[in-house]
Every structure is written in structure tokens, then in C-alpha cells.
């Protein structure tokens, strides 16, 4: 699906590169098909009542309202809500997966990342991840509200001063991805982005302590 023309792009949620984004992209295609069918249904009904009033008059008003207003939503919404709940539960940060922990700190208008697993190495504007391993990003802010988002990997979570939110992300393949701030945070909002560099899992620990680590903040 993701390779459909026009869906690719460095920030496309429809071109997923991780399990969370992939799950949500599938959810989207399901939603799209359902919505398109419902839209067609209503518009066909509208055309029929306008063009063929005699035909449509055979259905009593009460039946119209019960079928369209109660039965139809019940049939559509009940499984949808259950599916959504189960999907959401699967995307939550569960400690059973033994995730790697990285701290993300937003400040007008840049991102700092701390890697406790590598003895507290810090980077600015570049997030380093291992491929194929679940990661919990602990997101907070030092000033106003920002939001942490890597569209191709997962959904977003707000960075709120005084709060620490946890987002589960994972990248399937090594490579470079785009991350950005997704909550309006003032004049620098449009440019508040970061690079995500995904390393092969085996090379990750070494990369973090290498002297030429991209974005490294000297201590």
C-alpha cells in the first residue's frame, strides 16, 4: 500500500517505516474504504430522493430514520470502536518488551536527546536509534508545549512542561528519517525539526560513543 504513487515522502504517515506507523496506516486504509462507502451511500440516496421521489416514498419516514440514524451507525461504529481500542492498546509502551529508553527535551526551538544507556550521551537536533528494537521516548519540555513526532515511525506525543510523556517508537530498517515539532510553539515552530538516524542494531552502542556522533553536545 505504502508504495502507492503520491504516498511516499520524508514525512508521510502513509509510507510507514516502523510497526506503529504501519499499524496506523493500515487503520487509515480501513477507515478510508469504510468512509468512501458510506459517503457514496448517502449521496446515492440523496440523488435518488431528488430524482426518483416516487421510488423513495415507499420507505416510511420512521424506517428511514431508524435504519439510517440508528442501525447504520450501530453496525459501523461498534466494530470500529473495538478495533480502534485494540489497536491503541497494542501501540502502548509496555515494559514487557524490554524497550530502550531515550529522553527527549524540547526547548524553543530545538530538541535535545539524552541516552541513559550510553552513560548519558546528549545530542542536539539528531536522534539516534537502533533498528528493530522498541524504544520508549520520554518527552518533556523546558518552556512551552511542543510535540514530538516522527511521522514515518509512529504517532505523536505532546512535550508539556512539568509533565513527562512516554511514546513507543521503533524503526524497521537503518536509514535517515524526519522528526518535527507538531504543536505550535511560537516564531520558530516551522523550523523546529530534527534528524532521526537509525543505526543497525549491532552498531548502535558503538555509534553512540563514537567521537564523530552527529549532533553530539560536548560535555
Amino acid at each position, binding site marked *: 500500500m505504502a508504495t502507492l504513487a503520491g504516498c511516499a515522502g*520524508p514525512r508521510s504517515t502513509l509510507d510507514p517505516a516502523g510497526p506503529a506507523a504501519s499499524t*496506523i496506516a493500515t487503520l487509515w486504509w480501513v*477507515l478510508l474504504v469504510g468512509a468512501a462507502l458510506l459517503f457514496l451511500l448517502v449521496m446515492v440516496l*440523496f440523488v435518488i*430522493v431528488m430524482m426518483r421521489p416516487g421510488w423513495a416514498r415507499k420507505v416510511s419516514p420512521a424506517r428511514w430514520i431508524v435504519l439510517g440514524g440508528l442501525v447504520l451507525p450501530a453496525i459501523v461504529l461498534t466494530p470500529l470502536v473495538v478495533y480502534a481500542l485494540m489497536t*491503541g492498546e497494542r*501501540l502502548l509502551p509496555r515494559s514487557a518488551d524490554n524497550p530502550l529508553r531515550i529522553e527527549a527535551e524540547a526547548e524553543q526551538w530545538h530538541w535535545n536527546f539524552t541516552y541513559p544507556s550510553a552513560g548519558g550521551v546528549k545530542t542536539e537536533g539528531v536522534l539516534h536509534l537502533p533498528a528493530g528494537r522498541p524504544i520508549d521516548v520520554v518527552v518533556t519540555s523546558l518552556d512551552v*508545549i511542543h510535540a514530538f513526532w516522527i511521522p514515518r515511525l509512529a*504517532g505523536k506525543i505532546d512535550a508539556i512542561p512539568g509533565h513527562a510523556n512516554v511514546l513507543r517508537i521503533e524503526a524497521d530498517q537503518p536509514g535517515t528519517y524526519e522528526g518535527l515539532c507538531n504543536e505550535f510553539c511560537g516564531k520558530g515552530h516551522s523550523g523546529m525539526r530534527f534528524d532521526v538516524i537509525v543505526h543497525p542494531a549491532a552498531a548502535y552502542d558503538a555509534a553512540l560513543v563514537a567521537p564523530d556522533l552527529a549532533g553530539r553536545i560536548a560535555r
Partner: protein
Amino acid sequence: MTDAIDQGATPPAGSALRLHRELSEIWRTGPGLQRLAAVNHSILGIRFMVTALAFFAIGGVLGMLTRVQLATPMSAFMDVGTYNQVFTMHGSIMLFLFAIPMLEGIAVYLTPKILGTRDFAFPRLTAYGYWCYLFGGTILTVSLLAGVAPDGGWFMYTPLSSNVYTPGINADVWLLGVTFVEISALTLAVEIAVSTLTMRAPGMSLDRMPVFGWYMLVTAFMMILAFPPLILGSILLESERAFGFAFFDPTRGGDPLLWQHLFWLFGHPDVYIIFLPMAGLLSTMIPVLAGVPLAGYRAIIVAIIGLAFMSFGIWVHHMFTVGIPHLALAFFSAGSAIVAVPTAVQLFAWLATLAQGRPRWNVPMLYVFGFFSTFVIGGLTGVMLAIVPFDWQAHDTYFVVAHFHYVIAGAVAFPLIAGLYYWLPLLTGRVAVYRLSVPAFWLIYIGFNLTFFLMHLVGLLGMPRRINTYPDFESWTFLNMLSSVGGFIMTIGFALVVVDLIAQIRYGRRIRRDPWHAATLEWAMPIPPAPYAFASLPHIEARADRINVGTLAPQLARGEGYLGATRNGWQETLGVHMTSGAPEQLIVLPRPTYLPLWTAIATAAAVLTMLAKLYPLTLAMAAVTAGLFVFAALNAGLDRDHGLLPVGRGVSVPVHTECAHPPAWWALVFTLIADGTLFTSLVFGLLFLWVAAPNWPPVAVPDTGLALSLVCILALAAAAFFARRALVRLVGRQAPRLFIALAALALLVAIGVAVVLIGGIVPRPSDHALGATAAALLTFLALHAGIGLLFLLVATLRLASGRAGPTRTIDLRLARLWIDYTAITGALAVGLVLALPALVALLGMRP
């Protein structure tokens, strides 16, 4: 309609013209500058709508500016500061200065006519509401020209909107200007609710009320409940900005999420507040265009009441990414999905109506089609966004921008223009030319879908909202350019509609009666409507959306209904029983007056001096405003008893001044419901901070004096007792003065104690949110006790002048009700402040 009326038997032939002349003389608004004194609902309704359209044009231009900026990547058209002001003001203007006032204008203009009465209950309040709206809107617009417009987004999230990160005047303009306009919205909401419930044509029980009345009633109650949380939030945030109180600052025990809860507690119902009146227009027009009665009248009423309730329980779906536990989100997610049910009920009721009839393809119908297609898309994307995991990706992207433009731009613009074409013959007495109407529709329709449909896609491709520029990603660039082109096509369409409407107003063919074969009361009057609306009021014996306009209109014009004669030069209309619609009181309405204008100018002065941080002057202007309200109250009503007066068809009722529950009573009841919502929001705020905010517990723990607190509560109880005694004595024809004085004294004691308690609060309000919320609770008490004093002052002065007396007791009744409310909320407030140390001690258990 053949019963004799009280004064003279059946009116003689030619009486219609004479009655018209007499009524016009009584109800007219003077020429020239005297127009500023207008209080008539037709005039004010049109003013609201025309002003709202002017703001729509301004907001539209701002929207176009954003489309110019975003048409190409790395655009240098606007700098980021300007862009932030432009998109903030686009949203703020469209929602607060266009959508809400437009629905108010429609309500003011149409509701009395559709319900078969001559005006709204509080014409001077309508005028005051209009001026507040105009002045507040002007302040916001002028700030844009001065380059100091709000720039923090229409949602004003803290801490970005705090004085640390937005030190300039910009955020103050938003908080004060929008609150100013909201005062207007609240006054209108109370007025719509009271008028719909108590002022209808005699015999129009609630189950005979046209569905439009139900929509307006439900909308009004939603406004009464939805606006207070935002007003409270704005007051708290402004006091944080101006005086350093800590409510939202996480470093001082506040929480930015409190603002979001208060904002969306308003913001989500607001969507339905805007949509429901438009649905009301559709439910009124569609049956007429189809030539059959509305299908599912009762189902629709149940649906909109259900919708109103649900809309208050799903605000959290705007906050799916703030870190609330997933199971809690699931609850709000399911709620947001279920909201589709009442909406689907309405949609299929309209389809059923069309199916039963022989719908005509005309210009309003074309816009109904436009509504159906955009609204269904908006509704479906709404369900998508209610799905939590999908929202995690789509939240704050252009997908959301697309969604809500379908819902509140498409689902407002299309019904609104349909309504304009439908009701303009009523306003102007002319039918449309229609030469431009059809191409204008297609330009709007194509332009709208081109602009906003593509935004879904660019959002999914990862484009966030509120960015002023973007890198040259191939997919984004192409889609944004097309969106901008669509925007300009849509704008040309809107411009053509304006030209078309002007052509209709200037050159349309004159008509004398209903061009649609409608069946509601607004067409059973001379077209365009006279200032008195109905020469006499109809008696309703069946559902009032099945009126035979052709036979009823001439009967009413001849004065064959209720109040078909003039008396004492009074502007008369009838008040009815809330549910049964039986006539209960003769309501005498006030004449044109400049007082609303002066009061609004004083209010505007208070707002402007606050903006200029001249706080002593603000206090003075607030005092002037309060004084003008007292002055307005002094001359209201009548100065003697009239007993039962004949109102036609053999019915006699008392004048409203001699009733226990005139419209003013219900207005205060509904105002207190709004006020109670504000108080509840404040208590919610305190408990929310206690449970969830960072940096709790505070270093210092409050230690409020128990003795003083008890004195305060006792003083409030005493005030309530004395006010009650005063009323009993007045009704028993004894002098109530002593008890009024005692009640006032007790209120003064309560205010004094509250001030002392505020002065002693630990931690200081500027040090920690705990102190700030405690101070807010006690200030609430003191302020309400102060307003209680004004009520007592009005009652005293009116007793002295003879306008109040043993049979005209409303002033003391209002005072008593207000003081009762003050005593209850005041005791709760003091009790909460006393409980704070215990609450803080409990914090040890916080996870």
C-alpha cells in the same frame, strides 16, 4: 380567529391599515442618529448579520493571505510574526466574530417571527449585546492593523500565551477582546432561552413549537453552559499575565493542561453551537422545498437534545496526544463516535422528508446539496479522528484543518447561503434575480472542495498546522498550490454571491407575500416585516409549522388575533406558560433608548483601560458600567398597578410587572446556571491542579482562620435570611426597608471578611497555584456579594420611586434569588478554602 377582541367588537373593514399606522407609530425607531437607540429585534438582527458578514469578509481575506503564503515552499510573502497573527486572527474572527454572532443575528431576527411574537424579552439587552460585539470585534480588528494582534493561535495554549513567552499586548487583546464578545454571546443566549420558553404565540405548547424554536432553545442552553469555562479560563489567564497569579505555570504549581480542559470544555460544544442553528435552518427549509411537513419532528428534537448532552462529554478528543491514559481516551473516543448517531438521525430525517415530497431544484436546494456532500465528508473524517491511534498521526496536521473546515465552514456556509436566498424575500420584500446564483454556487462548491479536500492528503503526508513555510517536498508543494488555487476560486464564488444578493436587494421583483408556500409564522406578516412584526398575535391550535399562511396573514393584519389594538402607547406582546403556551402575562417592552450604547461604551472603556494596564481607571469604568445597569433598572417596568387587562379573544392577563415570574425572573435563573457553571469550573480547576499539576504540594500550607471563615459564612446566611424577610414584609404590605438594610450590612461584612481572608492567604497567589485558586474562590464570593448589594440598591430605589411595591415585587425577588445563590456558592467557596490544608495533607497518597 373570529372571536371579538376586548376593545370594540370585530374590527371594521379597513382596520388593517389603521392598525398598521398606530402600531408603527408606537414601535418605530427614529430616523438619523436615533437609529443608535434602536432596540427592535428586526433592526438588531439585521445589524448582527451584516456585521457578522463584514467580519466574515475580514476573516476570509486573512484566510486568503495564509493560502498565498502557503502556495509555494519557502515563501517570503509574510514574515513569521505577521503569519502567526494572520492565522490566529483568521480562526478567532471566524469563530468568535462571524459564526457565533451570525447565529445570534439569525436567532434575534427569525425566532420571534417564527414563534409568533412581536419581539424578544429584553430588547435593551439585545442592543447592549450588539454593541459589545461590535466594539469587541473592532478592538480585535484594530489590533491587527496596528500589528499587535494575538499571535498564539485561536486556542491560546499556555505557557506560550503567558507573559513569559508572549510578553507583548497581543495575548491580552485576545483574552479581553474575546471575553468582551463572549459577554455579548452570553446575554444573547439567556435572552434566546427566556424568549423561546416564555414568549410564543398563545396556544403554542412546546410540542407545537416549530423545530427551529427547539434548535434555538437547545443552542441557547448549550451557550449558557459552554461559554463560562472559557470565560473563567480567560479571566484566570489574564490575571496570571497581569498580576502574576499562578494558575497555568507548571513551575509554580499550575498546569498548562488546565487551560486546555477549560478551553475545550467550551471549544467542543462550540462546534455544535455553531452547527445546530444551521441545522435548524435546514430543518425549516427542507420541508418547504420538498412541499411536505418535516419527517421525524420528535426524533429530531430527541436527537438534538442528546447531541447537546453528548457534546459536553467529549472535549478530551481534542487532547488525545497530551498523555492521558489510553483507557480514559477510549471512553472519549467511543463518545465521539456515538455523536454520529444524533447527527445521522437528522441527516436521514432530512432525506426522508425529501423522499416524501416533490423536492424542487432551486438555488436554496443547490446549497442544500452542497451541505449534504460537505457535511457527510466532515462527519466521516470526524469519526476517523475520534479513533485514538489514527488521531495520534493526524492530530495537528492539515488533515484536521480539512476536517473542521468541512464541518464548520462547509456545514455552516452552505446552509447559511441557502438560508440567505430563502429568507431574503422576507427581509427585503423582493425575490432573487438568480442570474448569478448558479455559477456562484458552483464556484464556491468546486473551490471549497479543491481547497479543503486536498488538505486531508497533505496532512497525511505529514504537513503540520500553523507552519508559515515548508521545505520543497514534491508532494506538499503541488497540493498546497492546488489548495490555494481552490481558495481563490471559492473567494470569487463568495464575491459573486455578494453581487447577486445586492442585485436582489436592488433589482429583485417586489412581492407582497410568501414566495415559497411556506407554513411557518414568519411569512404571515407584511413583507418586509413592520417593526411590530404581527399586527395581532395568532392563536395556535396545531403544530406551528403547518400554518396556512395565506388565510392567517390577512386575519392577523386586520387585528383579529390577540393584542389587535393599541393601548397607552405600550409596546405590547404576550408572555405564555412555558410548556402549555397558555397566555399568562402582558409584556410591555421598553422603547428605543441610547442606554445600551452608553453602557457598552463604558464597558469598552473598561476593557481598553485594562489593555493599557490603567487598572484604577478600569475599576472606575467598571463602576460606571454597573451604575448604568442600575440606572437602566430604575426606569424599567410600570409605575402603578393595572390589574387584569384584556388581551383579545376574551382573555385577560396581568401585566408582567405584576407577575411573580416575569421574563426577568427566568433570565436571572438562567444567568445563575451560567454563573454556577463558571463556579463549578473554578472548583474543577482547583481539584484538577491538586490531583494532576506538577510542583505540589506547595512549600507553605494554607492556614485559614476558622473563626473568620465562619463569620463570613454566617454573614452570607444572614443576608439571605434578611432578604427573605424583606420580601415577606413587602408582600404583607409592611415596610421592608429595615431588612433590606440588614441584608446589605450582612453582605458588607461578608465582603470585608473575604478581603481580609484573601490578604492572609498562604502561599501567596503569585507564589503557588494553591494560593491563586483560593484567592479566586474568595474573590468570586466578594464579587457576588457586591452584585447582591447592587440588587438591594435597585430594589430600595424602586420602592422609593413607586416602581416596586407589594404587587410589583420582582426587584426583591431577584435580590433574594441572587443572595441565596451567593450564600450557597460562598459557603462552598469558604468551605473549600478551609479544606485546603486537609487536601494538601492527602497529597502524600498521590501516585
